[in-house]
């Protein structure tokens, strides 16, 4: 196996986690609609972490694949193949351990990382190997474009915050319950920022390759956006904990920093016309279409995030499904769309054709966008209803209020089902492509490469 295939290995594993995550998500959603569904076999307390961890693993493994895929193009043969494969094996061990942990009810970790903490060791080791391979490949490479900075930032900060995520094992942190919760949500904010750095870096990398000028990744604007993103990664987490009885300055900093997101939003609106022109120009180029979809979802979710970061509005949405809508909108609408773009551009193999006339891909793309919008709106509606209940007189109890949300959960479940099918379609097409390329030998690849219909028309 050549070093060049390491990105593919990680991407296939990431796609498998995506499929498992979506299936677990649908079954978890069933528990909202049908109480006690599968309760005697596997409860909500196990299904929810299965869903969340699988989706997190999809993003983390996909991000790893993007770094390897980019390095393969920028610095061919410079990464260590054995280190990358050892990293992959460590991920497999961690995944097996995490699922064993959940299925047998061996919890112990924090929310989103609920598995027995012992399985965090292979994850940390795998990430150290990624960082080693990253700096190994870039030895002697000067004047980094912005996407290299973003990959480096994402890789290093993920490791830092992942370790920070386990400070609770020390009584010094754990015994101060409010400080412990503050650190937990500081970590969650920075972890999301870390993988976003890798994924947005990948967008810059892809755009650089698509426009063929190489200017996108070296512009002053790109670096300004990078540093603003880094600033947010470091300090934009206070909005999670406005209601915690913490020190006021944490809330003030959180509020002020989150308002810098207006700059991103204004920039998106400012560039809208240009984006639309490019969209028409590149519509038939499949990876670009996913990036464009991610742009729309960034706009929607960033607008929502800014509103939710205003404490006076946060008090309405906090502790409701509006926050779930935001999490789903970002992980599916932004992260998954970017990873799909990377999948078709960087890892799709060279043995299969994804031409513009591929009806199944077209249908699945538009079904995923429409069903995600319905999914997102139903969560927001359920969340607002709960938010109004929280601030009202609460004449009805919690159970009755939740029961009144059932119609919205049914909409959520149905749209989630269509979302699963429509995202699984390109995922399965990509996996199939990898398998075909593995079966066919390199000489076949070379011949078919010329027939690729990945044309940038």
């Amino acid at each position: 196996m050549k070093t060049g295939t390491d990105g593919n290995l990680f991407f296939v594993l990431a796609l498998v986690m995506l499929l498992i995550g979506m299936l677990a998500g649908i079954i978890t959603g069933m528990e909202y609609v049908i109480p006690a569904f599968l309760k005697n076999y596997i409860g909500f307390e196990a299904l929810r972490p299965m869903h969340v961890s699988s989706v997190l693993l999809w993003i983390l493994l996909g991000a790893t694949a993007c770094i390897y895929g980019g390095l393969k193009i920028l610095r061919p043969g410079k990464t260590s193949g054995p280190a990358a494969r050892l990293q992959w094996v460590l991920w497999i061990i961690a995944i097996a351990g995490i699922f064993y942990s959940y299925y047998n009810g061996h919890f112990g970790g924090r929310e989103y990382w609920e598995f027995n903490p012992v399985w965090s060791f292979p994850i940390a080791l795998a990430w150290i190997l990624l960082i080693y391979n990253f700096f190994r490949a870039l030895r002697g490479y000067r004047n980094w474009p912005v996407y290299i900075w973003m990959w480096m930032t994402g890789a290093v900060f993920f490791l830092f915050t992942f370790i920070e995520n386990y400070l609770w094992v020390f009584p010094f942190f754990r015994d101060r319950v409010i400080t412990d919760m503050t650190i937990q949500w500081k970590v969650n904010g920075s972890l999301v920022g870390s993988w976003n750095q890798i994924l947005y870096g990948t967008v810059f990398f892809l755009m650089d390759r698509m426009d063929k000028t190489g200017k996108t990744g070296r512009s002053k604007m790109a670096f300004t956006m990078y540093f603003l993103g880094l600033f947010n990664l470091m300090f934009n987490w206070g909005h999670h904990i406005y209601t915690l009885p913490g020190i006021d300055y944490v809330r003030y900093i959180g509020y002020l920093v989150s308002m810098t997101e207006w700059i991103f939003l204004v920039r998106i609106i400012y560039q809208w016309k240009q984006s639309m022109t490019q969209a028409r120009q590149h519509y038939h180029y499949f990876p670009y279409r996913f990036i464009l979809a991610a742009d729309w979802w960034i706009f929607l979710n960033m607008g929502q995030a800014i509103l939710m970061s205003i404490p006076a509005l946060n008090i309405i949405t906090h502790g409701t499904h509006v926050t779930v809508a935001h999490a789903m909108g970002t992980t599916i609408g932004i992260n998954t769309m970017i990873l799909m773009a990377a999948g078709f551009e960087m890892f799709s193999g060279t043995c299969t054709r994804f031409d513009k006339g591929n009806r199944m891909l077209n249908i699945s793309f538009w079904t995923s966008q429409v069903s995600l919008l319905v999914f997102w709106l139903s969560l927001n509606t359920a969340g607002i209803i709960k938010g109004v209940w929280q601030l009202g007189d609460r004449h009805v109890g919690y159970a009755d209020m939740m029961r009144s949300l059932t119609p919205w959960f049914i909409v959520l479940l149905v749209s989630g089902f269509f979302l699963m099918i429509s995202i699984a379609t390109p995922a399965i097409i990509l996996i199939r492509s990898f398998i075909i390329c593995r079966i066919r030998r390199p000489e076949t690849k070379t011949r078919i490469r010329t027939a690729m219909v990945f044309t940038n028309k």
Partner: protein
Amino acid sequence: MNRMPSIVFAILCMAFLIYSGSIYIYGASASEGTEFKAEAGNGKLVWQKYNCQGCHQMYGLGGYLGPDLTNVSSKWQNDTILEAVIRSGNERMPSYHGMDRKNMKALLVFLREMDASGTADPRNFRREMNGMIYRNENRN
């Protein structure tokens, strides 16, 4: 230009480390002081061990299938009732009848400690014109 990203990166990292360090050392809550409550910390471990956070929230943070439990201790005002609910479960919640005494005691101390730390009720905040919120002195 080439050195500029490195310099900005280094400055931001320094600021991040100082901010993080201040939270680790001095804590994030004035009311916590320097008093360490090991029993509450052990209760937090039980909370995580049984993944209560998968369905319930503390200060609105956690899963949304079940209710927020920040102030459940003062709501029930009786640990015996709370223990009975945890042990018996309900239509959606699994029963934890097998939880040993030590774990149950630690969990109840943790819930009392969370309750004493403040209120999670959003009605207990007043909103200001600048968008900020402030906690009312009196708890509902």
